[in-house]
């Protein structure tokens, strides 16, 4: 039993399946949500899986260095910045338009 489980220890390719699936789920959310906050949440899923990719490559390709983890830190900082500005914009938009439906925010197209 233990030998069987140990023979299936995840390698780098198996690990990389995880962010790929999470990113695909994030893309699905981005394309199907209509609420602006829902789109932001889906984007967070995708960003998080991108950061996880860096950590996986760090662990399996260059385990003696920390470059991948530093990149993940930058990604987390950028994601935090994005959410702060996004939430501010959404609150302001809601004050003016009383809606969060992105299909009705087309002022710049007309």
């Amino acid at each position, binding site marked *: 039993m233990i030998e069987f*489980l*140990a023979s299936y220890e995840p390698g780098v390719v198996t690990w990389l399946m995880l962010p790929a699936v999470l990113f695909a789920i994030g893309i699905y959310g981005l*394309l199907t949500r209509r609420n602006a906050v829902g789109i932001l949440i889906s984007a967070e899923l995708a960003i998080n899986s991108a950061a*996880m990719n860096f950590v996986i490559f760090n662990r399996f390709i260059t*385990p003696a260095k920390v470059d991948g983890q530093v990149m993940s830190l930058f990604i987390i900082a950028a994601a935090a*910045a994005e959410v702060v500005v996004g939430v501010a914009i959404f609150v302001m938009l809601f004050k003016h338009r009383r809606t969060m439906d992105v299909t009705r925010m087309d002022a710049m197209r007309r």
Partner: protein
Amino acid sequence: MLSAAVTTVLFFALLALAVAFAVATVLTRRIFRSAIYLMGTLATSAAFYVMLGAEFLAGVQILVYVGGIVVLIVFAVMLTSSGEMLEDHPSALRRFLGFVVAAGFCATTVFVCFLTEFKSVAADKAVHAGDAAAIGRKLLDRGAEGYVLPFEIISLLLLCVVIAAIVIARKTGAAAGSGAGAGEQG
């Protein structure tokens, strides 16, 4: 041998949990529940970081993502009363197109991953370098391999974001009328 077996079991159990949370995040009709499921996905990601030997990053993930970003999103849900608004069921065409794009991306990525030869280093030979001190030295290293310039740019970006958020979300004089400045919020 035993640790490899434990890693296998943990990896696939957490994989199932993370994918289940992520699917619930994009499928639920209530945005507030979506935010809570997102918190679950991010917490499982932190567990994956611990399994990958990046303990400091796992802590940052919990602090910034679960403690900061999700709370901000919950605030956004409350302030915009999206909590009461139910996401209407997306049309079949939208769901189909979204599924096709997502499945196509996933299939392409998996295919490329299997084709690529990774110069993977054996886990036994791996030097454990993921502690916070190494990351801190790397961030402030002014040499060719250091990240001091991106580090400073990120700090500048965060400052800009704080100012921008206050400017965007505050009450402007024209819109607020005589009550300008009384109820500023950032």
